[in-house]
């Protein structure tokens, strides 16, 4: 096949699978002008849904960034029993359906669950509240930072760290001055992927949130709810904002990529 043919196939596929549906969403949203979309977006429940999504993301991303870097360091730089298990477990959220994750949280934190009863006796509501939604989101977005950082750490080796030790730098100082700057682009890349995953999370959160409007409804859940209430304009408008966020993330990636190659 010649190059033109390849290009047509690649672009045609993208148009059919990605651009087409996205275009239709755009078109449907603004079919009757800006007003209906604006009205849908300014409903208090919708605003709350976006705030909740951003809050969950704002908690899950830093947690997973720290965890991901620590895990990557442990996997690449340390030898300990159970390392293989840790390495395999980090990928689990990629393989596991988010719905299964949600159900497992149900089993742990439900009234009959392992921790649920005890926590409830002490006045902590996990299920159908922010804690469960945060835990579910952390779980599904867990692998991205570690998976980005591990190959970079392997590639740079530990020569620079050892050089820092011989120059008198302690472990903590070496991490901040040498290791972290060397892996910074991998971390940024992982953070962006994690953020995208958190913003778009649906399945696990759907199971554990209870979907209480204005309380435990995130933006993605709100899209589903609006759709089921035959408020298509509302559903489309929220989808558009989510799509724009995703596009923003993609643009962020493209901006970073060339710099990463130069570093």
């Amino acid at each position, binding site marked *: 096949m010649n190059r033109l043919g390849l290009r047509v196939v690649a672009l045609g596929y993208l148009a059919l699978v990605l651009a087409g549906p996205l275009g239709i969403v755009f078109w449907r949203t603004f079919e009757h002008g800006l007003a209906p979309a604006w009205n849908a977006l300014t409903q208090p429940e919708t605003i709350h849904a976006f705030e909740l999504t951003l809050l969950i993301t704002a908690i899950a991303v830093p947690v997973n960034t720290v965890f991901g870097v620590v895990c990557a360091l442990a996997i690449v730089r340390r030898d300990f029993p159970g390392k293989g298990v840790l390495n395999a477990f980090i990928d689990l959220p990629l393989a596991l359906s988010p719905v299964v994750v949600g159900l497992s949280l149900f089993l742990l934190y439900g009234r009959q669950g392992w921790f649920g009863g005890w926590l409830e006796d002490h006045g902590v509501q996990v299920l159908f509240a922010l804690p469960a939604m945060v835990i579910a989101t952390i779980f599904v977005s867990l692998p991205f930072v570690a998976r980005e950082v591990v190959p970079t750490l392997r590639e740079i080796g530990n020569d620079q760290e050892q050089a820092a030790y*011989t120059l008198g730098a302690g472990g903590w100082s070496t991490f901040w001055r040498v290791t972290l700057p060397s892996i910074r682009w991998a971390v940024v890349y992982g953070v962006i992927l994690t953020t995208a995953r958190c913003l778009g999370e649906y399945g696990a959160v759907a199971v554990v949130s209870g979907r209480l409007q204005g309380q435990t409804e995130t933006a993605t859940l709100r899209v589903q709810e609006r759709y089921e209430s035959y408020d298509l304009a509302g559903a489309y408008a929220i989808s558009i904002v989510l799509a724009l966020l995703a596009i923003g993330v993609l643009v962020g990636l493209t901006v970073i990529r060339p710099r990463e190659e130069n570093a």
Partner: protein
Amino acid sequence: MSIVVQGVSKRFGDFVALEAVSLDVPSGSLTALLGPSGSGKSTLLRIVAGLETPDCGEIRLEGGDATALAPQQRHVGFVFQHYAPFKHMTVRENVAFGLKVRKKPKAEIRERVEQLLSLVQLQGFGHRYPAQLSGGQRQRMALARALAPEPKVLLLDEPFGALDARVRAELREWLIHLHDVVHVTTVFVTHDREEAMEVADQIAVLNEGRLEQVGAPRELYDEPASEFVMRFVGDAHEVGGVLVRPHDLEFLDGASSDAVEAMIVKSTVLGRDVKVELHGADGAEIVALLTRERFEQLGLWRGQTVWLRPERERVFAPVAA
């Protein structure tokens, strides 16, 4: 500062990297650890720096037991084989690193860095990143970085390994000069005997994790303690069952009970010397080296049969397996 290595052994899994090695490095000396790859020389250097822990044995720095000390506490400067530059820092920041982590005053750091950059002839390169330097410049930056915190010992792992021949020769000269100026106890690892001979004032020869011999370059060459050292430190050939250096062969006109019959295959003029290749009557390949004067005086020609008498020959007891 003196270094004492006492009975150090190290294994990596089944591989024995070092076996009961003991070595004294006098204060202010320039010592080479010489050996083929896999002989344990780099491991020994890393153990002295605290980057590896010995399975048993002791490291003493300036008389004090340093075996349990972390690399940060040993005050050694280490130059890595591939220099390990901090890639995200400029040359100046690289050199300043060891001073910054020791919280030296800023003015002092600036002054010391400039002083070191001029010592390693990298003035004007301070703002560059390691990726913008040549191999030789990167090497010198690594040296300046290692010297900045004024270490008591400077350790270099294959310091000239990754450079081309001309830069190598230049840096050798330069390292000798540096040692004269800074006068810090220096140990470097090399697999190149000429490099060791030219630069070091003491050479420790390692083979398969064991220390074969320690001595001045001339001592190793003239009085090798083992067949391995004899062969590794200079050229050596077996002539009539003994090992002999190429220039320790005397050409005789006639048969003699202590000489070996051989036929001249080829002769090559190497400046003042002539290299003569011969086939021994027993099938051995022999190389002899003699001055041009002597060569012409003897009137040697290709195909001629001669008798060779080893002078200063050596016989080593076979190594117990």
